[in-house]
């Protein structure tokens, strides 16, 4: 063992950085949900809030003020006065209620006043006055600790007053102080925009300077670029999502102002993208992820309404064509970036594993997404982008398959055009994509199977995760981009799952695609593995299949492709 960290002299220096505070809730949404449910009139949602607060309590860092609020509400739930219509074993006897109310009020006064009072300079009463705690609560605290137990009617009244005060003192002001995502983008949006613009401008200037200009000027501009780049990078590290979306806005604007065919406007941005990505390769990937996501959303919208959205800008969404072109363009940039990064990797052996391992899984993920999306529209931009991506993964069979697919697509559109004209002409393309994907997935499954049967050794309970991306503690790593994702912490219930399946099935039935589709592999969206059984998404439903079934499906697919 080594000695560590003794550089840090004071605790505040190391541990109290910024205005961050350790809280038991995972997000302000979580907090807000509890706030709303706690003060709602429905006993069921109040119960939900109380349960969540008891989970917070078990984490050990709940503010007293929340604990006290929960205790008052919980006691009121046991009081017939606040729960008329409720009778029976849930309710408590009068003197029990009185004691609970008294204890909570005592904890409220002592716990909250103690925080505001410095040492013992002033009395509890005076300190309570300063923060406006109702006098009644102070009296009850005194009364029940030193004299008789107050009457139930009094403490009931006090509990109501206490709740009102707690709302005024904490819950409402805190709600107002929450940074809403919208606000944040508005606040930082301007800054991000200006910084990106600055960088773009400085790069433009450099390009514009003729080669015979004085060296000094060049140097200065270089300095300027570096500074601007640093600013942007700094912003990116703290608000990656916002920065990416704003950059995307810029790019789309640049592209729209020009024609689709004319890419000169977009190419102006190339140096910026390249410079940036060299420093932060993640950025380009996040950008790509975002574009695919936008295409996906757009296509989903289109499918749902069942028709093309006529005016392009009505929904505020850029056209799929634009997006796909942008995607292709960005992939081109990514490709340009790669060799240079490799050069770096050979010289800097320390950093190389980190940099190298990062993109591969992400690229494959992007490719997958790109394929799913491109199947929905006839999209040669995305198809070519996909093949570039495939080449980048260095997987030759993948490239070949993609080529085959493209030729299949071409022949299909020629021969069966009369069948297709009822449906979106992308239909066959769509089907091929799915079958191809299914083939890939099944191959993967088969590999897993053979691997499993080959090494049937004792299954290990604990295993180190094979690939992992850095992400904050309490979050899960994200496929695309540098930030993690906030996990869903609700326990997945069996019944809920059933319901989900039903609704999922209904939605599938509405879709015209399924009606025609009579192959026994409809949609193999995803595969999991659990206890020797495999879960397959077939026709929108999760089904468990045995190994033999998987093999059967696999062979069927091979014939098709």
């Amino acid at each position, binding site marked *: 063992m080594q000695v560590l960290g003794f550089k840090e002299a004071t605790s505040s220096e190391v541990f109290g950085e910024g205005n961050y505070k350790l809280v038991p809730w995972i997000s302000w949404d979580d907090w807000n949900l509890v706030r709303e449910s706690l003060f709602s009139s429905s006993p069921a949602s109040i119960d939900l809030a109380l349960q969540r607060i008891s989970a917070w309590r078990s984490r050990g860092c709940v503010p007293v003020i929340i604990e006290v609020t929960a205790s008052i509400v919980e006691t009121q739930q046991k009081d017939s006065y606040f729960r008329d219509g409720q009778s029976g074993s849930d309710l408590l006897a009068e003197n029990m209620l009185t004691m609970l109310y008294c204890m909570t009020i005592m904890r409220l006064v002592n716990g909250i006043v103690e925080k505001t009072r410095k040492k013992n300079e002033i009395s509890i009463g005076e300190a309570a006055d300063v923060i406006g705690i109702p006098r009644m609560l102070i009296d009850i605290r005194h009364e029940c600790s030193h004299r008789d137990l107050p009457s139930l009617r009094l403490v009931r009244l006090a509990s109501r007053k206490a709740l009102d005060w707690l709302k005024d003192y*904490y819950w409402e002001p805190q709600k107002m102080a929450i940074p809403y995502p919208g606000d944040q983008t508005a606040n930082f949006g301007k800054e991000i925009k200006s910084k990106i613009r600055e960088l773009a401008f400085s790069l433009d200037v450099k390009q514009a300077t003729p080669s015979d200009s004085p060296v000094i000027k060049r140097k200065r501009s270089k300095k300027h670029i570096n500074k601007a780049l640093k600013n942007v990078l700094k912003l990116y590290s703290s608000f990656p999502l916002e920065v990416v979306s704003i950059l995307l806005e810029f790019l789309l604007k640049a592209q729209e102002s020009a024609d689709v065919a004319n890419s000169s406007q977009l190419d102006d941005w190339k140096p910026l993208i390249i410079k940036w990505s060299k420093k932060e390769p993640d950025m380009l990937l996040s950008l790509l992820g975002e574009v695919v996501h936008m295409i996906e959303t757009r296509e989903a919208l289109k499918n749902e309404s069942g028709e093309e959205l006529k005016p392009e800008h009505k929904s505020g969404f850029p056209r799929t064509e634009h997006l796909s072109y942008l995607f292709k363009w960005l992939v081109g940039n990514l490709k340009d970036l790669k060799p240079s990064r490799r050069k770096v990797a050979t010289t800097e052996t320390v950093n190389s594993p980190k940099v190298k391992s990062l993109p591969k899984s992400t690229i494959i993920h992007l490719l997958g997404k790109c394929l799913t999306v491109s199947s929905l529209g006839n999209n040669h931009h995305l198809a070519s982008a996909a093949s570039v991506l495939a080449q980048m993964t260095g997987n030759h069979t993948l490239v070949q398959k993609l080529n085959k697919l493209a030729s299949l697509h071409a022949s299909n559109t020629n021969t069966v055009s009369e069948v297709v004209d009822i449906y979106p002409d992308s239909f066959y393309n769509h089907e091929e994509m799915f079958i191809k994907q299914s083939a890939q997935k099944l191959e993967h499954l088969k590999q897993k199977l053979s691997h499993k049967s080959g090494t049937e050794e004792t299954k290990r*309970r604990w295993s180190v995760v094979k690939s992992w*991306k850095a992400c904050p503690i309490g979050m899960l790593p994200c496929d695309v981009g540098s930030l993690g994702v906030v996990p869903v912490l609700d326990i997945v219930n069996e019944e809920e799952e059933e319901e989900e399946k039903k609704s999922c099935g209904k939605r599938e039935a509405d879709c015209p695609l399924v009606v025609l589709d009579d192959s026994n592999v409809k949609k193999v969206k995803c595969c999991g593995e659990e206890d020797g059984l495999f879960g397959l998404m077939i026709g929108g439903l999760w089904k468990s299949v045995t190994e033999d079934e998987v093999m059967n499906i696999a062979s069927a697919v091979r014939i098709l492709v």
Partner: protein
Amino acid sequence: MESLRLHTLKKNPKRDPVVQFRLPADRRLCVLFFHKTLTLKDTNMAIASSLMEVEECEAMDIYIPEEWSEAADVIACSGGQTQTLTAFICGPKNSGKSTFARHLLQVLLHRHKRVAYLDSDVGQPEFTPPGCLSLTVLDRETIDMRIQPERCFFFGDISSKRDPEIYLTYIYALYDHYIKQYCQLPSASPSNSGVPLIINTSGWVKGIGYDVLVDMLKHIDPSHVVNICISAKSKNLPSGAFWSQDGDAGAITLIEINSARQDSLNRSVLVHKDSPHLRDLSIVTYFRQCFPSDMNMRSVKEIAQALAAHPPYEVSMSAVNIKHLHCEVPKAEIFYSLNASIVGLAVDPEGSEHLPRCVGLGIVRGIDTLRRVLYIITPVPQNVLEDVDVLLQGFIQIPTCLLQVHGCVSPYMASNVLPGI
């Protein structure tokens, strides 16, 4: 019935004005070094030289007054044939219990091959991260090796007040384990006989803490009790055999000594220690072991950064039991409670009367409810981990420095919290 009183202080032990003990992480540091060296003087040099490299270097001589060395010698020499040597060290906060215990350990290791150390100071233990109660056996050869406790329980809080009963159960179980392994089987394993035991206690000597201490003393029945006193009399434990009803110490040798550091008026100079900071540091040091020791990581920040990127262990939710030691968590809320918290990794015992044995701590760094797996960071090696089937949750707070890595701030670190709440 012999009561040694060494604190009469007729002669003032020579006191060096430079003597200081102001190191922020004194405990941790000394733990790291004391077993490497044979004398305390060397220890000081080791600490000093290690700190030369870091920015701030304070004077940090560990001062052992004559009174203390005499007491330690008395204990060491009293090697009775009748009873195994058991030294119970108690006293108020910051009186130097751990320092004395370490000194005694050094002295005993000169005479004995191995020495057992029962640590009941659950807030700032010597050989384990906070929240653990452990029995550790040390020998002269354990140089440069990670000391693994012989037996460890996860109490899950930094003070016994949360549950004094279970706290005592753990302590008794550790002591009984020591008796069974090192005192009752002289014929089976002669090497195990004659292993003296040092018991260190927490500084909570008033109220419930006092009751707990008395219960411990009654159960353990040590051969020596060392009561360290400070000048503020009201904070001390009572003098004499406070644990027995008639004030008779019986066969127990009671040694009362003064705290090491006193000013010119014989007042104890107490070191103000930032205990939460020390605890955080201790936890960070523990998780530092996830990485090879030759990896260059000097600051807490670097370790936090590395931990955020460290590939965790993956374990299926169905393979482990999740249990909160001190409160009831609604079933549906388990993961809200568990995410980003520190857990004790324990092995469920076969028999019902046995207690879950703890093999180390882990950080639940992420939960995937869809894949039904937990991601856990721990320095515990995989072969040991394989037996772990219980995750014990307690109130050991995860250090906030691990949650606010640059560019990787945990969702549990919220900004915009109203001030003063």
